[in-house]
């Protein structure tokens, strides 16, 4: 696949070329959306919106990493969806103390609100990880999804999230730290090679 030629054709309005690009990136785009939004249906809508928006604004693509550009479009679509959700009354992901400060604690996983039935539903590792991702603030979640799940390097992630490299490093470290704490609650689900605490260097 000659990506540059396809992009040029798409910039001239060739929808078939753009659809070829979609077929190449749709799994990554959907995966990014589903991990940021934590919901399949919303992720599908966001991915579709992102591709429509990308086609309409492809003339603004001025070279560089097309993957970063398309990922930026999908993260924007996800942020729009999250903003829409925020306007509706929802249970906050981050519990707060009486002082209004965020509780950054692994106790979140032992939340009595999470019923045994829900816990058994989250028995699969993927669900547990998604649950932990959902507890992260959106900006942190986006960075960890882009780097650790999508395998982008720091500069690509910075281009996608439109933040400086230092911000990516900082957010990634904070996100990993929180995930480490969160995943402790699902210790029994983790494969032996990924058990936390006291493992040796692998």
């Amino acid at each position, binding site marked *: 696949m000659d990506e540059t030629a396809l992009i040029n054709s798409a910039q001239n309005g060739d929808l078939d070329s753009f659809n070829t690009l979609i077929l190449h990136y749709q799994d990554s785009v959907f995966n990014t959306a589903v991990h940021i939004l934590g919901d399949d249906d919303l992720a599908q809508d966001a991915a579709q919106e992102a591709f429509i928006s990308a086609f309409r604004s492809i003339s603004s693509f001025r070279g560089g990493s097309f993957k970063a550009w398309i990922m930026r479009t999908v993260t924007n679509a996800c942020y729009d969806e999250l903003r829409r959700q925020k306007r509706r009354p929802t249970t906050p992901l981050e519990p707060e103390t009486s002082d209004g400060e965020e509780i950054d604690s692994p106790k979140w996983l032992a939340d009595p609100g999470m019923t045994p039935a829900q816990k058994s539903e989250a028995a699969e590792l993927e669900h547990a990880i998604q649950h932990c991702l959902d507890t992260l603030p959106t900006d942190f979640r986006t960075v960890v999804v882009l780097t650790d799940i999508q395998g982008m390097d720091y500069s690509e992630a910075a281009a996608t999230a439109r933040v400086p490299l230092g911000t990516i490093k900082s957010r990634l470290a904070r996100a990993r730290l929180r995930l480490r704490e969160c995943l402790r609650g699902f210790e029994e689900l983790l494969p032996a090679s*990924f058990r936390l605490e006291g493992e040796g260097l*692998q």
Partner: protein
Amino acid sequence: MKNFREIELLSSYLDGQLNASESTRLESRLTSDPELASVLFDLRAARGILRKLPARKAPRNFALTRKMVGLKPPLPRAYPIFRFSTAFATVLLMLSLAANLVIPQFNFAASAPQAAYGFGGGGDPASAAEEPLMEMAPAVLPTDDITARQGEPSADAMQTLKEAGTESGLPEQAEARNEAFVPVNWQIGLLIIILLGGLLMWIMRQTASRKWR
């Protein structure tokens, strides 16, 4: 718990983002600080879990259709000409209809005072030219004659006024009121242009979309 700066360093170290000297310094600290090493292990495990997360396939195809992105079939080059002429003819037809509706009423309104008072010029330039003569006529009469005749116009004046009224064309104005300002034939012509233009544009659009499919 280590401070955040150290955790950030460890995270960057995991991804190979530290330069050689920073890496060496951190590695030497890791050997002497078991707590720091433990944090590194946990961060690495967390990263490893995320990286092992199975990539999901998109549940459906996200390929776009032309309808989704609002693409329209390319129209023939002559299309804008037809569109312009149809729009122009429509505007002209509207203006002509409005003119036929408004202008006769305006003429009638302008001639109404003249009919009511019997004299005074009105809209007719011919009678307006005669007006000064009529005004000057009583000035040559004696003063007592004027007083005696105040309030009733003389027979001559009445005759003059009648003539003036006939010359100013009051019955003609009434006829003009019934006449259209823009001939009806023109309006029919414009209507035909509009209908033909619309029909041709519709055919062009249909043909273009059929070809596009």
